[in-house]
């Protein structure tokens, strides 16, 4: 058992990665066997995620895993040369978030994709995407971060354009791939600049030596912009509605976790890699500005959409703004360590998992709605609540949670963001609350259009068992996180927030010693 716990970080990447390559082979033998295999891989990965998280949250310091050796610093050397995974509270938090989305999305996918061809590649790319996201969250090495970023880009774009018979899917995949590639190149250029200056790629090593030179600033600018774009921050968000809108419904849910992995990368760069070497107040205000734009433009664009998935996609974009706002205020106040800064960080980070659960639930519900209605156009839907009462309930739970209605989870995290950002600057809280009100209006529109009113056609097909179970699981998570926020904030959110806000020295020390 100890060996399993010790090796859990690398297994969390290796199991879905090897599973991805095995799936097409098993699929040639038997399709049901392939599904069982993929389900087992997903369950094993989730178990590893649980082990990693439990280990980290009960440890006083970040845990490290050295590939090909035991010591982070080989004997007699002053810099790490091996590939190192480093897991602190923030990484562990992200691992839980990703595992939750992956396990529900894959089980939803089985009946959802049953009648389509290409299941081998679908499940292989799905597992590859999961491995890439976990890799981004666990690695302690900047170059490996880039490699995993590219793995997620390739797998995500393959899945966005998976409906090869639809021109729009191909267009969305092409646009996303092009933007992902350019942002990936910017990340690589930034890593090259840092490597040229410090002769190292390990994040802890670089953090210990980074000094704030002009080269460091150029690298920071490249990393910040590229990762904010991949997270979907306005005005670099335009790929997101295309991608989320055209991807199969369960993939859209996983793309949310993928965007949040980029957001994690951004936070890791700002707090751990650079720390206080460059004015955190100015950097915090860059995040806050992006946040306000993201909230307002995201929600107002959602209001005028008539395609249900593009509407949810714009809603998801607006929620990235809340995370940026909370963490931006936390960054801006990190030098003075004002208490409300930590609450803002907690709110922003708590909103990440809340958003993943409720946007995931909305995308999965939208998948069931589109299947039943045979269209994505809200103007051609109506009365689906007669035939899909439980889907209507799940959609309502997701909508209320995302709009920040008590007692659902979105309210708890948004309340922390509103009240802490109000302490920093009241106008921030005003814009954030306005965004939530508009988002509620957006989902009232969807609910009225899709579920209420008379039946418009023949009775609609109900979602099958696994689809129902996946939506039900996310709905339970949304309610549980909403009813018991204190438990989750105390157990997983606060260690994550503290790991970023005040854990830089511990992160460096875990690799460099001292």
């Amino acid at each position, binding site marked *: 058992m100890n060996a399993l716990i010790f090796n859990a970080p690398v297994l969390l990447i290796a199991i879905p990665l090897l599973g991805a390559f095995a799936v097409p082979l098993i699929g040639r033998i038997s399709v049901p066997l392939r599904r069982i295999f993929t389900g087992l891989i997903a369950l094993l990965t989730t178990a590893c995620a649980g082990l990693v998280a439990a280990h980290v949250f009960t440890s006083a310091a970040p845990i490290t895993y050295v590939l090909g050796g035991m010591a982070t610093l080989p004997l007699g050397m002053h810099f790490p040369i091996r590939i190192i995974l480093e897991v602190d509270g923030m990484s562990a938090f992200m691992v839980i978030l990703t595992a939750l989305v992956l396990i529900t999305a894959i089980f939803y996918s089985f009946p959802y994709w049953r009648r389509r061809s290409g299941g081998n590649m679908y499940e292989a790319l799905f597992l590859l995407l999961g491995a890439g996201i976990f890799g981004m969250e666990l690695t302690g090495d900047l170059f490996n971060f880039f490699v995993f970023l590219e793995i997620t880009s390739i797998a995500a774009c393959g899945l966005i354009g998976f409906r090869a018979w639809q021109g729009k899917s191909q267009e969305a995949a092409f646009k996303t791939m*092009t933007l992902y590639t350019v942002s990936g190149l910017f990340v690589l250029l930034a890593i090259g600049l840092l490597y040229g200056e410090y002769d190292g790629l390990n994040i802890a090593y670089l953090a210990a030596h980074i000094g704030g030179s002009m080269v460091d600033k150029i690298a920071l600018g490249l990393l910040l912009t590229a990762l904010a774009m991949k997270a979907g921050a306005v005005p670099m968000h335009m790929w997101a509605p295309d991608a989320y809108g055209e991807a199969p419904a369960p993939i859209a849910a996983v793309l949310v976790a993928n965007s949040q992995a980029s957001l994690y990368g951004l936070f890791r760069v700002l707090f751990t890699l650079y720390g206080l070497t460059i004015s955190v107040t100015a950097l915090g205000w860059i995040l806050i500005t992006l946040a306000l734009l993201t909230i307002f433009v995201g929600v107002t664009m959602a209001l005028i959409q008539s395609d249900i998935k593009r509407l949810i996609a714009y809603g998801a974009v607006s929620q990235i703004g809340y995370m940026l706002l909370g963490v931006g205020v936390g960054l801006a106040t990190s030098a003075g360590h004002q*208490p409300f800064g930590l*609450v803002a960080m907690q709110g922003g980070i708590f909103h990440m998992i809340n958003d993943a659960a409720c946007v995931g639930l909305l995308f999965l519900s939208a998948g069931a709605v589109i299947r039943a209605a045979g269209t994505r156009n*809200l103007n051609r839907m109506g*009365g689906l609540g007669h035939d899909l009462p439980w889907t209507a309930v799940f959609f309502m739970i997701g909508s209320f949670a995302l709009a920040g209605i008590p*007692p659902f989870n979105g309210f708890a995290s948004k309340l922390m963001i509103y009240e802490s950002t109000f302490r920093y600057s009241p106008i921030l809280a005003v814009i954030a609350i306005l965004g939530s009100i508009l988002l509620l209006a957006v989902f009232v*529109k969807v609910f*009225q*259009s899709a579920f*209420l009113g008379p039946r418009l056609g023949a009775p609609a097909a109900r979602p099958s068992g696994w689809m129902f179970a996946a939506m039900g699981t996310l709905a339970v998570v949304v309610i549980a996180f909403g009813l018991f926020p204190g438990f989750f904030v105390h157990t997983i959110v606060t260690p994550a927030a503290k790991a970023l806000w005040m854990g830089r020295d511990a992160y460096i020390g875990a690799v460099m010693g001292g």
Partner: protein
Amino acid sequence: MNAINTGFGIWSPVVWTLLFLGVLGIGFWIWGAGRKDYKKNSDQTKPFLAGNEEPDPARLHVSGDHLYWGMTAGLRAYYDRIREWHTGVLSDYFAWFIGVLAVVFIVIGLLR
């Protein structure tokens, strides 16, 4: 264990839920105190439409685009501009990306 500190105060969803259920209970009690002598499944329980022929229910459904038209019409200047920016053209996506990169470079370059 279920409450959180928001910086200004405490948020306890269990207390809120209990209060909400209490208010809901009072609402049902008031509703239950209403008249029960109406005839179920008769015209007494249908919407009253004076004289006109009842239209097809499907035509009565208010669909997505009809909601908030007043709001979007009032914000036409904003929506015209914001729709213009969302061209769907890949080169425009890059223009925004490079524009933000330029602004970030300027801001970070000015920092000490």
